[in-house]
């Protein structure tokens, strides 16, 4: 699903955000990406979602070498990645239903199909009946669920989540992660960037650890007190 081969990202001023990173996330696999602030988690996610290009190395996504992908192909590739953000990135001037159906609208589905699938996605994330709400009238957790519904509505093979529980309380965080688990059970690859080590330890999934742009650990993380 995702293959990183000696990927480095160096920003202006010779700042190396990622250094020679190698990893392989298989199809249907769920993993955490962790590390302190500035460790390179967001850069790595940006490289996968083509918001940034690697300075050196090779990235393969869905069988495509995306290291030197043409700009015109980027939107089509992004349609195969579900992205979830800490700040939700919802369109506040549109209803919940319109937010969730946006990827389908872009892909050219009919209105009927968009509505049908958006309602199904909202049902999946436990937001049935809130389709006509404006996102601003929802709680943080609910807004995050709208973001998840939008990310999964076109059944992407890969789900990327950048600090999805960053603004949520522990109970809600667990609920959101359970949702990711259920999506993963249906075959979706999931990569979650978080610095919440307690949560990672509870979930017991593969964990990629970054420090100063380098991959320092790739394996299961144990609960500190257990």
């Amino acid at each position: 699903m995702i293959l990183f081969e000696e990927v480095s990202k160096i920003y202006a001023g010779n700042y190396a955000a990622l250094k020679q990173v190698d990893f392989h996330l298989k199809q249907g696999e769920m993993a955490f990406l962790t590390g302190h602030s500035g460790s390179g988690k967001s850069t790595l996610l940006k490289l996968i979602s083509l918001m940034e290009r690697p300075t050196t190395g090779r990235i393969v996504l869905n069988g495509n070498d995306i290291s030197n992908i043409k700009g015109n192909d980027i939107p089509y590739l992004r349609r195969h990645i579900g992205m979830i953000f800490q700040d939700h990135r919802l369109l506040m001037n549109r209803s919940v239903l319109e937010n969730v159906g946006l990827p389908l609208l872009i892909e050219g589905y009919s209105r009927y199909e968009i509505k049908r699938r958006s309602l199904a996605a909202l049902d999946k994330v436990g937001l049935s009946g809130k389709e006509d709400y404006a996102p601003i009238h929802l709680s943080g957790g609910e807004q995050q669920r709208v973001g998840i519904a939008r990310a999964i509505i076109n059944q992407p093979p890969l789900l990327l989540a950048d600090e999805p529980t960053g603004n949520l309380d522990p109970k809600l965080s667990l609920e959101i992660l359970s949702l990711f688990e259920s999506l993963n059970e249906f075959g979706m690859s999931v990569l979650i960037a978080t610095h919440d080590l307690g949560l990672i330890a509870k979930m017991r999934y593969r964990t990629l650890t970054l420090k100063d742009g380098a991959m320092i650990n790739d394996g299961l993380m144990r609960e500190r007190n257990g």
Partner: protein
Amino acid sequence: MANQTDYKKVLSSSPRITKVSFFGRVGAVIRQHFQQIFSSFTELWKTPFATLMTILVLGVALSLPSVFHVLYKNAERVSAQWDSASEISLFLKKDISEPRVQVLINKLSMYDDIDSVTYISRHQALEEFKEMSGFSKALNYLDENPLPAVLVVTPAKQAMNTAGSKLLVAKLKREQDIDLVRVDVDWIEKLQAILSLVVDIVIGIAILLLLSVLLIVSNTIRLNILNQRPEIEVMKLVGATNSFIQRPFLYVGAWYGLLGGTIAWFLTFSLVQWLQSGVMDLMGLYQVQFQISLMSFAESAIMIAVATFLGFIASYISVKQYLVRIEPK
């Protein structure tokens, strides 16, 4: 895991794989175009005051060249009327005999640039003068008729303009039996020079105003793009192409142009209607029957189409300048 097979379907060596069929995509593009045309119109009225201000400014800016165009068109019609009424008077030498006059008339009638020749004999000229001047009794005391015979020449259509008239006059002056050629082309020449200058000024002003329309729409669209930057970023993140995102902005620009053009047409129509009675009164003083000609259907359609196109182009400039550069962070 039945759904795993579904996910495999979307894996491919080409990133352009889509889950919608070819015809589905074509239909979707057409549907999206229509949806975006109408949604962009609705979008305009979410900020009614700003929209109204913008289209009014465009309307005023576009109405000025169109009013000038209508005025020029009518001025040209007036000058054409005067021009076509111009006649050339040929004062013949006093000692010319009637048979020589007849020969001269026949000769002039054969000229391509002369439409008709009317002969006024010395006797007819004196009678007309007596009638017009009111000095008939005094004129009876004259020993001989002091007036020469006159040939009134009406130039053919191609010789009615200033250059043609001048050429004809030069030819007529070479005739031996003609003592004096009188044609008042100077004022026509001056009028045409003034009109030509007015045309140049109007073209200059029109270019400046059309440029201002471009700038107004372009700037409005630029502000719209900057205001919607977060939305544009989100759309790009979920896979929207540049053309999908830019279409509503292009349509908004075209709507501005269309509405501005319509207002300009209405302003032009109203202004010209308002001037109508004043112009008719003025022309009446010169004993000329004149009805102001408004913009024709074709002219109106061209003006609105040009305004719409300008709006579209202005929007396109902004979209290419700002929207395409926005990338999600």
